[in-house]
Every structure is written in C-alpha cells, then in structure tokens.
C-alpha cells in the first residue's frame, strides 16, 4: 500500500503531513512512502533525510498522485491535479470540508474518498488523531510567544536597582485547548493571567494552571455534550462585557481563542473596550479566520488603533512549522492505522466506526 | 509505721498506666498491628497466675477443680505467648529494611 503526499503551497502552508520520523513508522508497518521533491526542505529536512528512512521521491506532483493509494495532505491540492488521482484512493487532511465542499465533490467524483479530520468526533479513542487539539495547543503557545516578542515591555516582574518592572497582565479569551496552553505559557513567563470562558468546567481548569478565572455572575453552563461551547444568551453577553471592559483597563496583552463550532466566532472585545486600553497593548486574535473575537481584527493583518495593536492570525502555525508538522503527522498516522486492516493489508472503511463514519466527507 | 503493700502496688499500677500512655503515643501507625499482637502476647503474663493456680496445694491435689482451671489457663496463655511473639516476629520480618 502506497502512501503519498505532495508539497503544499509553501507560501501559505509551511507544515508538512509526513515527517521522516513518521515515514519510518509507516514503513515499518508495511507501507511505502512517496513524496514530492523538496518536501520538507523549508523546515531544514532535506530529501536525503527522507530517503534515509526509505521514502521514494518523485519530482512531480502528478507522479505522486498517480501512484498513491492514500494521500496525506494539510490542504487540498490545486484542482488542476485532481485528474491524476488514482482510482479508489483515499485522501486525508484538514480540508475545512464545509467551505470546500465543491472541490471535495470533484475529488469524490474521481472515486476517491476524502476524510477531513476537523470532523473528528471528540471521543476519548480519537484523541490521538485529534488534529484540532494538537494544532490548537501549539497555536495557543505560539500566540503568547509571538505577542511577548512584539510587546515593548518585559513580561515578568523584576525588582531591580533601577526600579521595578511590574508583571504584565494577560487576558485569555476562551479557555479551550488553545486558551489553556496560552494561559500556561503566559503564566510560566511570569505574567498575571486572567481568563474567561462560557463553560463552567473551564474555571477549575484555568485555576489548575495558575490563571485567574473571570467569573461572570450567574453564568450558565454553555457546554454542549461534545464539550464545545454554545452561543451565549444576551444577558450573559452583557455581563461578560461589563466584566471584561473593567478588566481590560489594566490588561497588557489579550489572547483571543473563543470559538463556537460551525458559527462565527463570538465578538468579545468591542471597540469601546479597546479605547480604554493602554497604548502599546496587544490583542492577538487566533479566532481571526472565523471572524475574530475582537473589533478591528483583520485576517493576517496587524491593525493599530489608539496605539493598541490588534493582530489577526489565521496561519500562526506557519511560525512553528516543525513542531506542528510533527504532531499533525502523528495524528494522521494514528488515523491511517485505524483505517488500515493489517491482516488483509487493505483499507477498511468501516462505517460502524464512529471515527471513520464522521470524518468521511459525504 | 508500716505502709500497707497495697499502697505500693497501687502506686506501681498508676505509674505503669502513665508509661503505657506515653509509650504508645509515639508509635508509627504502620506498626499498630504488630504492637497489638505484642501487647497481646505480653498480657498473657497472666500465666504466672495460672502456674500458681495449677501447682496450688500438695501433689495429690493437682487434679482438684481449681487446679484444673489453672492447667486450662496455662494452655490458653501458652498458646498466646508462643503464638503472639512468633506472629509478631513474622510480621516484623516484613518491615525489615531492605538492604541498600
């Protein structure tokens, strides 16, 4: 069985879906690996390295697609290459299937099954394939590191002979996977960290990382069964707004991670709130691609309003491509193993399996 | 001005109570069971009374009722003494510090 992967458009995607380490694992499980040339060179991974692990390298995308039974990607390849897809092959990636349904249908018409991993159910068994968790985790980390690098002051408290630098105050909006890692990272650096979320369970989680949870009076629990958030009531929104407005006056850095699956991201930081912030403060909005949690957020742009810097990042993992690729590739590996029937040496699309059923784009 | 020996015995009794009190306060909880089994063994010092009872009177009397009770008490106490100390010893083996 041949697993293939073609290079992504490196302008917009620096991660890769097979690392040499994982390639080795596939091969020892009986797969063959086929990749396009210069697959990981931008990450300092030479083609040599892949070859050492036993991968085959083709110069052209076409050649990879023609031969591979399973194609592992991050984003969908350019439409022009769909024609080369092998009959009955399988394509796995993070395809935003909602928005890209047209393209995916074209692929499916080639008799290729498409699995899009953002559809993965959040069940315990699926944790090792959960690309949303693994990537959100790194995003949360990187958002903090990035904003600390941009911030014009030092983060930790320092009492020195030349006066005291007080600890920076960070607010994390949304304490999901990304938010929690952001809290942990900021806390490590010595920042004073506040966090807000609509799910009540997150209070304990925030505190378990040393953060302070902003408790909205009379908060209802807005957690769905799957562990995601529901949209909040207007009353809740009002109270949350007041609390955040008050808090923001002393906050230096805001990390936004609040999302509601399938909906536009909730707008939490309003124009008025931003006015009250000190010049030099930073709002780092990881929800940008889904509309952003902050006013003025523009995707992949840095906006300055009254000295407050609002950063809308949609591709933050391009700044942490090595680690992100490692985890992503491992997620895919676990997913493939679950699909693969080792005894029969074939792919078994078992629709009884919740994981397979839910991720298959129908 | 002779003092009744009872007074002395009573003094001894009271002082022993204090000692019992203090000795136990400092025991590690993990030793509670061996401690109980050792105190149990010790309390069979009642065998002293049993022996006196068994041997009371002349040789011919040794199977009078009272002596028989003495002999029975000896058996009971003896079970206890041997059993108690040995079982304590076994338990304490477990607490032997491993060599490092």
């Amino acid at each position, binding site marked *: 069985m041949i697993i293939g992967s073609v290079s992504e458009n490196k302008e917009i995607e620096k991660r890769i879906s097979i690392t040499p380490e994982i390639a080795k694992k596939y091969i020892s499980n009986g797969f063959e690996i086929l990749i396009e040339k210069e697959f990981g060179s931008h990450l300092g991974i030479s083609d040599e390295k892949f070859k050492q692990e036993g991968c085959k390298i083709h110069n052209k995308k076409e050649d990879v697609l023609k031969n591979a039974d399973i194609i592992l990607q991050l984003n969908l390849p350019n439409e022009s290459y769909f024609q080369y897809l092998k009959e009955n092959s399988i394509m796995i990636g993070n395809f935003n299937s909602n928005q890209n349904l047209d393209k995916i249908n074209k692929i499916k018409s080639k008799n290729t099954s498409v699995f899009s991993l953002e559809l993965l159910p959040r069940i315990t068994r699926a*944790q090792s394939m959960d690309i949303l968790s693994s990537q959100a985790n790194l995003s949360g980390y990187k958002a903090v590191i990035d904003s600390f690098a941009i911030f014009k002051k030092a983060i930790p408290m320092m009492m020195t002979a030349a006066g005291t630098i007080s600890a920076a105050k960070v607010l994390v909006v949304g304490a999901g996977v990304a938010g929690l890692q952001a809290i942990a990272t900021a806390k490590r650096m010595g920042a004073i960290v506040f966090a807000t979320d609509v799910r009540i369970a997150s209070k304990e989680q925030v505190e378990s990382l040393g953060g302070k949870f902003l408790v909205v009076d009379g908060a209802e629990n807005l957690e769905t069964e799957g562990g995601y958030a529901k949209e909040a009531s207007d009353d809740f929104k009002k109270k949350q707004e007041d609390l955040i407005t008050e808090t923001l006056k002393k906050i230096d850095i805001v990390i936004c991670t609040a999302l509601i699956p399938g909906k536009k991201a909730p707008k939490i930081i309003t124009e008025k709130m931003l006015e009250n912030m000190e010049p030099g403060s930073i709002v780092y909005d990881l929800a940008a691609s889904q509309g952003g949690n902050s006013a003025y957020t523009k995707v992949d742009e840095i906006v300055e309003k009254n000295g407050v810097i609002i950063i809308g990042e949609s591709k933050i993992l391009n700044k942490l491509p090595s680690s992100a690729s490692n985890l992503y590739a491992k997620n895919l590996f676990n997913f493939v193993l679950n699909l693969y029937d080792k005894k029969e040496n074939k792919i078994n699309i078992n629709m009884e399996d919740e994981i397979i059923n839910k991720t298959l784009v129908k | 001005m002779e003092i009744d020996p009872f007074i002395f015995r009573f003094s001894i009794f009271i002082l*022993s109570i204090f000692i*019992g009190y203090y000795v136990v306060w400092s025991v*590690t909880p993990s030793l509670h069971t061996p401690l109980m089994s050792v105190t149990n063994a*010790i309390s069979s010092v009642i065998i*002293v009374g049993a*022996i006196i009872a068994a041997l009371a009177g002349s040789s011919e009397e040794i199977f009078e009722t*009272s002596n028989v009770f003495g002999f029975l*008490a000896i058996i009971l106490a003896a079970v206890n003494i*041997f059993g108690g100390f040995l079982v304590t010893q076994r338990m304490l083996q477990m607490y032997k510090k491993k060599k490092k």
Partner: protein
Amino acid sequence: MSANLSASFYLLSGILFILALRGLSSPETSRQGNYFGIAGMIIAIVVTFLSVGNFGMGFVYVLIFLLVGGSIGAVIAFRIPMTAMPELVAGFHSLVGLAAVFVAISAFLKPEAFDLGTVGNIKLASLIEMSLGAAIGAITFSGSIIAFLKLRGIMSGAPITFRGQHLLNLFLGISVIVLIFYLCKFQSNNLFWAIVGISFLAGVLLIIPIGGADMPVVISMLNSYSGWAAAGIGFTLENTALIITGALVGSSGAILSYIMCKGMNRSFFNVILGGWGATDQASSSQTKEQKPVKNGNADDAAFLMKNASSVIIVPGYGMAVAQAQHALREMVDALKKNGVKVSYAIHPVAGRMPGHMNVLLAEANVPYDEVFELEEINNDFANCDVAYIIGANDVTNPVAKSDPQSPIFGMPVLDVEKSKSILFVKRSLSPGYAGIDNDLFYRDNTLMLFADAKKMTEEIVKSL
C-alpha cells in the same frame, strides 16, 4: 526463692515489657522490642516456678501443658496467612480473657494457695480484685470471640443493633456491680458464677453493634480490657509483674484505640458505644453498591514508599487542581534520599490540556530525565513496588483495555495495576473526566488515600 528476689525479678520482667512496647514504636527497633518481650516472659515464668518451688509431678504437668499450648500457638503463628492478622489477634485476645477468668475461678475456689484467706472467708480486697478480674476477663473473652467471628466473616460485619441495647448494657453493668457487692458479703459460689456469666453476655452485647470497619479499634480496646483483667488478677496474686504489665497493656490499648479512631477520623465514643456510630455510617453508604476499598493514611503511604525500591508517580488532573506539584517534588526528593528510585509516568492525555502535566512538573523543577511518556514507562510498572497515582483516574482505568463498550475503550492506559501496590490519591470515589468508575479502587493491592492531593502529599512528606 525469696519473696524479695522474686519481686525484683518480676519488676525486671515488667521493665522488659515496657522496653518491648517502646521498641515497637519504630520499625528499626521493633524486632528488638519483641525480643525484650520474650525475655520478660521467660523471666516471669521461670521466677514463678522457682518461687512456687514445687518441682513434683505438678511441675511436669505444667511443663506439658505449657508445651502443648505453646505448640498450638506456634503452629497457628506459622500457618496463619498474613492477611488474617486482625482476626488472629482478636482470637488470641479471647484466650487471654478466658485465662484470666480461669485463674480468678481457681483463686476463688482455693484461696489458700494464694494466701488470700480460706474458702468462704476470702479477704475483702482480694475478693473485689478477683471478681473484677474475672468480669473483665469474661467480657474480653466473649467480646473477642464476636470480633473474631466478624472479622473472619463467619458473622456478618454489619452492626447488629436493637432497641434498648444501651439500656440493656447499662443494666448488665449495674448487675455485675451489685453482684460483686453481694459476693463480698456472702462469698457464695453462685454469685461468682453469675458474675462470670453476665460478663460473658455483656461482652457479646458490647461488640455486636460495632461495624466491621471499626474492628481494629475494637481489638485494641479488647486488648486494653485484657490488660485491666490481668492487672486485677495481679492485685489478687500480689504480683508486680502482672500489675505493671496489666496497667501497661490496659492503658496502651486504650490510647491506641483512641489514636486509631483519630487516624480514621471517627469519634472514639461513637466507636466504643457501637450502636450510635453505626447508624449514620450505614445510611450514607446505602445509596451506592458498597464495594470495599482499603482506606489508608499518609503514614501508611509513607511507610510503603519508603520501603519500596522503586516508585512510579502517575500525575493527573487532580494534581493540577490541587496544585500539588511542589509538594510532589518534595516527596520525591525525600524518597530519593531514602534510596528509592522514582520516575514520573505521564499519560498523553493526563490533565485537561496537551502537556498539562509537563507545565506543572517543570514549574516544580522536576528534572526532565525523570519524566517518561506512556510507551517508555509502561513496562516498568511490572517491576515497580508502588504506583503513586495523584489525582489521575481515567488514564489508569484498565477498562480501556477490556471493555469495548466503555467510552474510553481503545485509549492506551498506564498499566499501574501491574505494580505491587497502588496508592490512589483523590478526594472521593467519584469518577474522572470520562465519568466512568475505576475498577482499580477496589483491588486488593490498592490503598485509597482520600484527601486533597496537595494536603495528602504534604502529609506524606512529613511522615517520611
């Protein structure tokens, strides 16, 4: 042997008994303590022989009975499985109690042998002493028998209560006192037998309302009783060794049961008075299917780990909630100082965020080379003495390996059940994130340490 000499030797044996108990207070000196006890006993017996000075036929019989009893005791001691210890001790107590009764009877029947006067004309003090000795001995006997039956499982461990129980006990107590009063007056045999009989009954009634869980306390209490009985007899026989030992055992047993109650967070009086304590305990546990768990405290945990050669720490979300990482690090430091090999096993999804445990352990400066991921360490559990599971739950749940219906089936889990003993630090038996029960709590080699993870770990540090 002169009276003075034998009295001195009895004193010596009393002192050896004190040293025996003292030795038992720490593991290092405990064996030595046992030897002191044995020495004291040998001295007491030999001195008794010498002072009675009768080496005729009787002496031979005594020796024979001594050996018969001794052999039985020895056989029991070697055969008994370690797990049956508590019931064994209870059984032994009953013997001491009965022996005290027998000696008292014997003294009552033949007071001349003990210098207590003549039949029907026994000295007042001696009479009181011997009847008290007999009564307490009888209570010890029958009480211990009940405790034994309960522990052995022959009798149900459930408390047996009935209306008026306490009144009945009170009545029995008063009767004994009244009977002793009349005994002093009339010195009648029947009265004496009645005292013994009623005391047997009282012993039974005192112990049946006490639940199985409180048995250790009861045993210690009965131990104390047996001591008082011995002391009573000691006064009768004017024997210092018996008095010292009796008082020693009596008070130490009482204190020990008090300490044990405190350790279990139970009220001493509730336990001793049985019935009352039992009711509220029963009601709270009826809601759930009550599987038995072993409930330990910090000292137990400290002892187990100190004497282990390797310990694996399994942290989970509860450690994070309790912010126990610093205390944990300290505990590990203390263990390492004791020569114990310690490593940390991190499950990939422990906590509520990827890398949750790593953040906290790094904060507590745990060296990276002591931290292992699941695949690296999972085989080590089989060779490890203690798994210390601190606030983790789902990540250890073996159901993930066995039950396809379980929501966590298929998740790799840490094989903590392979280690020799498991210590679980959590606040209750409630489940973790996945909401499912963990079978490990009820295993034989599991000790539950119910407390906040930080508090418990700090206490363990103190005990180390």
